[in-house]
C-alpha cells in the first residue's frame, strides 16, 4: 500500500468519490485549476471537468446555500471552506438550514448529500484567523454530523463515509498535520463508519480522549506517562456528533479516570459535553475529577501559540495530577 500524507488522502477520497459517482460535485474558493490553497482538490478539475469541480465567488454563505440546493436536488455536494475560521458567514445556512432541512419538511426533502470540508486548528503560526477549532459550535446543532480524522488512513475512509452519508456532515481537517501525518492508505474505495470511536491504545489507569491533531499530543503524553508506569487508554473520537459515549464510558468504567483534550477554548468546548455525559454515566467509577486540557479562553494568539495550545506536556501534567488525585 502506498504511503501518503493526510492531505493526499483527502485528495484521494475526493477522487474516488467523484470517479465512482457522477453526482459528486466539488466547489469552493480556489479549488478549481489551482487545486485549493492547500491543494486538497488538486487535479480534480482536470479530471472531472469544470462543471463538477469549480471555483466559487468568495461567499461562504453562498457556497453552503448553493450546496444545500444542489444536495436537495439530488447531487452530492462537497463544499470546501478555505479555512474553518471563515465558516461563520455560512453559519445560518449550516445551522438553520442544512441541519433542519429534513426535519422541517417531514422528510419530504433533505440535503443529506452535503459535506462541508474545511481545514482547522492551530500550529501553523496563523494567529486569530487561520487557527480556530470551531467544532463545538456545530456539535450543539442537532441534524449535523461532525467528523474529524487524525491520520491519513482515517481521512480517506471517513471522508468517503461522510460524502455518502445520508445526513449533512461537517468534516474538519487538521491542517497542522496535513503533510506531517503519513501512513499507508489503500488506493481503493473504503469507508470507516461514522459515530464510532477508535480505541487506539489500550490501557488500564486513565483514559485520554481527543480528535484531530490533538491525538498526537495525547499519544506522546501517554508515552511519557508510561515511563512513570501509568498506562493510558487513548481514544480517538473521530466522529464528534453523534459521538460514541458507549466506548468512552466503557473505558472510563475500566480506568476510573478521564482527560479530554482539544485546541478550542475551554469554556463551552466539546470537552465539557464529554465530561458531563461521562460523569452522568460513570459517576461511581470515577476516582478523580474528569479533566480538560484545552485552549485558553482567548482568541487564538500568534506569538504565544505554543503557550496557548494544549500540548503533550500539559496533557502529561494533567495525567499525573489525575492519577495522584
Amino acid at each position: 500500500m502506498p504511503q501518503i500524507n493526510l492531505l493526499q488522502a483527502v485528495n484521494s477520497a475526493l477522487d474516488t468519490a467523484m470517479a465512482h459517482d457522477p453526482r459528486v460535485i466539488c466547489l469552493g474558493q480556489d479549488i478549481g485549476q489551482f487545486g485549493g490553497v492547500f491543494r486538497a482538490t488538486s487535479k480534480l478539475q482536470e479530471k472531472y471537468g469544470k462543471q463538477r469541480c469549480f471555483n466559487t465567488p468568495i461567499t461562504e454563505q453562498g457556497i453552503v446555500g448553493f450546496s444545500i440546493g444542489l444536495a436537495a436536488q439530488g447531487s452530492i455536494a462537497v463544499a470546501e471552506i478555505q479555512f474553518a475560521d471563515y465558516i461563520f458567514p455560512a453559519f445560518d445556512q449550516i445551522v438553520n438550514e442544512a441541519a433542519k432541512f429534513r426535519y422541517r419538511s417531514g422528510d419530504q426533502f433533505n440535503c443529506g448529500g452535503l459535506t462541508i470540508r474545511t481545514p482547522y486548528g492551530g500550529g501553523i503560526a496563523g494567529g486569530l484567523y487561520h487557527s480556530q477549532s470551531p467544532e463545538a459550535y456545530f456539535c450543539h446543532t442537532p441534524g449535523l454530523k461532525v467528523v474529524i480524522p487524525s491520520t491519513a488512513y482515517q481521512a480517506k475512509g471517513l471522508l468517503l463515509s461522510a460524502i455518502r452519508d445520508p445526513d449533512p456532515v461537517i468534516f474538519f481537517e487538521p491542517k497542522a498535520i496535513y503533510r506531517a501525518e503519513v501512513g499507508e492508505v489503500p488506493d481503493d474505495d473504503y469507508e470507516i463508519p461514522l459515530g464510532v470511536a477508535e480505541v487506539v491504545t489500550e490501557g488500564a489507569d486513565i483514559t485520554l480522549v481527543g480528535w484531530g491533531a490533538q491525538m498526537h499530543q495525547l499519544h506522546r503524553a501517554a508515552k511519557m506517562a508510561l515511563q512513570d508506569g501509568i498506562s493510558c487508554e487513548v481514544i480517538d473520537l473521530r466522529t464528534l456528533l453523534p459521538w460514541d459515549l458507549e466506548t468512552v464510558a466503557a473505558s472510563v468504567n475500566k480506568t476510573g479516570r478521564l482527560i479530554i483534550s482539544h485546541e478550542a477554548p475551554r469554556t463551552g468546548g466539546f470537552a465539557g459535553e464529554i465530561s458531563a455525559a461521562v460523569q452522568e454515566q460513570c459517576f461511581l467509577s470515577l476516582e478523580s475529577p474528569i479533566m480538560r486540557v484545552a485552549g485558553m479562553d482567548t482568541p487564538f494568539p500568534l506569538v504565544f501559540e505554543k503557550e496557548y495550545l494544549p500540548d503533550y506536556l500539559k496533557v502529561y501534567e494533567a495525567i499525573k495530577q489525575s492519577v495522584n488525585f
Partner: protein
Amino acid sequence: MTAKSKQTDVLRFTETTDLTIPTLRILDADGKLRKNAHEPVIDKATALKIYENMAYIRVLDERMLAAQRQGRLSFYLTCTGEEASVVGSIAGFKSHDMVMSQYREQAALRYRGFSSEQFMNQLLSNDLDFGKGRQMPIHYGSHELNYMTISSPLATQIPQAAGYAYGQKLAGKDACTICYFGDGAASEGDFHAGLNMAAVSNCPVVFVVRNNGYAISTPTSEQFAGDGIAPRGIGYGISSIRVDGNDILAVYAASVEARRLALQTNAPVIIETMSYRLGAHSTSDDPSSYRNADEEEIWRQKDPILRMKKWLLDKGWWSDQQDHQLKTQYKKEILDALKSQEKRPSPPLSDLITDVYKTPPLHLRQQYTELLNHIAKYPDHYLPNPNNSGHQSALTQVN
C-alpha cells in the same frame, strides 16, 4: 480588467438615474389591453385556471383570517393584493420546475394542485401534515408538487435555488427553478450570494421578487435607497424585468419569457413584480400603526383579481354568475375542509425524534425512551389534545 468599459476623460459619477427600468404593463386599470401592448398567447383554459386560482386564494385567505380570529388556527398570513404576482408567474412555468418560495406564495402551491385538505393539514398541524406538525402554520411544502418546504429564515432559499437549478442543469433535466422572495428579504446577504452565484455559474433559475412596499412595518424607503430590486440584477449580469404586479398579463408574459430565457441561455433571470401588501403582515400584525388607510385604499382600487375579471368578461370567457358560483363553491370547500381536518389527531409523538437524521441515532432514541417514561408518570399533563386548537400561540402578538 473589464474590457467592456470605455475610457472617458470626464470625471462624472454614474447615478441611479442613469439606469431606469420601466414597468411592463399590458392591461390598463380597467382590464383593457393598453394601446401598443401585445396580448400574450394564452388559451382560455389557462386563463381560467389562473383566475380561479386567484379567486380561490382570496377566499382561502379571508376564511383562514377569520378562523385565526376564532382561535381555530394559531397563525396565518395572507397574499391579498399580490395574487397576480404569484399566480401570473407560476403559470408561466411547468409543473416539473422546482418552486422555492418565501411564505406569501400559497397561490403558487394551489396552482400546482394543493388541495384544501392539504392546506388545512398543515395549518392545523394534524397527522396528515406533510411537515409532521413541526413548523408553524403557512410553512407548506410538497414533494409531489415540486414545492420546496418553506423555512422562516428569510432569503436562505435564494442561494439554494441557484444550487438546485445548477443540479437540474447538470442532471440534464429540461427544468428550471423559480425562486420567490420579498423586497425585505432582498436585503439579506444571502440575496447577494445567491444572485451572484446563479449568474457566474450559469444556473437556470428565475427569481421573482415581490416588491410589495413593506417588510412588516418597514417601508421600502427604509429598506433601500435604490430604485427597487431589478436594477441590482444588472450589476450581477442578470437579465431583469420589472412588471406591474397587479397586471396578470404582464406578469404572465414576463414569466413565460423568463423561463424560456433561463433554460435557453442557462442563466438566471429576475422579475420584479410591483404590487402592494394589502393586508397586515400576518395575523400578529396591525398595520394601522405604521401606514395610513388612504394608501391602502389607493391600492385596494387596483385589485388584480378584479382587473383580470374585467378582461375575462370582455373576452366573453367568464360571467358574473360563474364568478359568484365559484366563490360560493370555494367558500364551502374550504370551510368543509377546515371542519373535517381539524377533527384529525396530531401526528404521533414518535415524530418528535424522526428525521433529525435519516436514522435516529442512539442518543435520540434514549432521550425518547426517557420522555415516554416521564410522560407515563404524568399522562394528563402532556400530549396534544386531539383537537389542535389547543396550540394557541403568543405569536398572535408578534410576527
